[in-house]
């Protein structure tokens, strides 16, 4: 049965976020490249060590060598991280916007899309509370009871196409929208010296500006992880049907499994 599953506002905000996150990530890596070390604490240790991740370059036997240091472990990443195309830069040109080194341009584009993301989230939150979409994203008790089965079904790539989201979808989308994106915004604001004056308590919440920067980076990695799984699930669950529903709103459900109360034609 073909049902109208995604409202216009859900589809528009989805695609604006997709664009925002693409540019935010690639300009974020440009900004990261300006000082490719992450620390824990209020400040960056130059005379002591509070770094948890550092991407750098050193003189190796065969010329420049890219190295990544994570929690004291060193990895050779020549060609990708630290050194790429014979140039010393943490993330390679293919992963930064602009492709050449320009912290100023990276920042300008980053903050433009940060505003767009915040604006779109605000519109989405208000609209989704009003139209009931928020409720569709929060797992209920029955969902949680069905969680083990849903995990088993996903593991076997056995998908049920129903009008409502399954519990893993709810958990995944819910944690992006209610946890990861707010965390990105909050840690981003914690890095702002001006916003530190406005809301100094954020420094207490995140235990310092440099820790906030590290959490910002880790959350970015988590969002990439979500994106990867999101793409795999679309491919596995039927890409045409999934894409149609997020573009036109219309989604084909498995007739047998559709609960009549979910098949709303609004």
């Amino acid at each position: 049965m073909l049902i109208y599953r995604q409202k216009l506002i859900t589809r528009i905000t989805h695609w604006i976020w997709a664009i925002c996150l693409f540019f935010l990530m690639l300009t974020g890596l440009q900004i990261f490249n300006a000082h490719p070390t992450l620390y824990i604490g209020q400040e960056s240790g130059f005379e002591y060590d509070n770094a948890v991740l550092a991407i750098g370059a050193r003189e190796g036997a065969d010329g420049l060598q890219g190295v990544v240091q994570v929690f004291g472990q060193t990895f050779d990443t020549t060609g990708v991280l630290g050194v790429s195309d014979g140039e010393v830069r943490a993330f390679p040109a293919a992963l930064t916007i602009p492709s050449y080194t320009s912290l100023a341009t990276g920042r300008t584009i980053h903050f433009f899309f940060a505003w767009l993301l915040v604006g779109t989230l605000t519109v989405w939150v208000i609209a989704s509370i009003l139209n009931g979409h928020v409720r569709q994203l929060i797992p209920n008790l029955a969902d949680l009871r069905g969680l083990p089965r849903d995990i088993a079904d996903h593991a076997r790539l056995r998908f049920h196409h129903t009008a409502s989201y399954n519990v893993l979808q709810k958990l995944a989308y819910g944690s992006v929208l209610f946890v990861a994106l707010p965390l990105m915004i909050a840690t981003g604001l914690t890095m702002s010296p001006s916003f530190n004056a406005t809301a100094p308590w954020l420094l207490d919440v995140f235990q310092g500006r440099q820790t906030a920067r590290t959490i910002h980076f880790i959350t970015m990695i988590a969002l990439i992880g979500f994106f990867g799984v999101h793409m795999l699930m679309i491919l596995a669950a039927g890409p045409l049907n999934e894409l149609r529903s997020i573009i036109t709103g219309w989604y084909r459900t498995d007739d047998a499994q559709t609960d009549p109360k979910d098949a709303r034609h609004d």
Partner: protein
Amino acid sequence: MIDRRKLLLGGAALALSGCKVLDDAAGDSALHKLFASAENLTMASQRLLSPNALAPTFEPSDIRQGQRPNGSVNADSPEYLSMAAAGFEPYQLRITGLVERPQSISYGALRNMPQQSQITRHDCVEGWSCIAKWTGTPLSAVLNEAKPKLTARYAVFHCFDAIERGLSGEVFYYESIDLIDAYHPQTILAYGLNDAALPIAHGAPIRLRVERQLGYKQTKFIHTIELTDSLLPYGAGKGSYWADRGYEWYAGI
């Protein structure tokens, strides 16, 4: 039928070329102007949210290392070098422009003005931070001596350090803040760092501390503060060396 491998390769190529699309989004392009328009929103929000709020301060125990020098770490004009050799005693800070009483304040006189210390975090635009204790004279006290005219809106800082040397000559560092930040209670002309005289690497004899902004606003090697109603005459028109090179003039984030 489209080969799936080719499709994937095509997608990857598209993603790679996607990264280069915005390579033109610098300088004066329309695209850059669109992106940069968000900077006005950023500054307006920051002003709205914290017109007078104070930057967080830290405890002496939070100073775990020396302040990291950055940007210009010396100035080398003959005038500057001879002053440095004399312990900056001949130094005179000039206050000029839209003021009722232009000033020339000696290094000694400046240190006899009201003194203030604060332990704050210095945030470089690159991403690192460093906590240090800064001691100096509130900029408001210095400006009050000079009595800014009602038309004055900005304080422009002229510096001894040549940040750039090219065929067309030297570019001396210049930076500016508006009078809202100039009169902020934590805005000081610092002559002390971590309980010692401000070292040359940190902009001796005086540098600005404007605590709610990034490192490039913390102007070093200041010799003249000029009050003005417009930033257009300075540098390329933004009244700030780095703002003229694509960075935000209001560096609050």
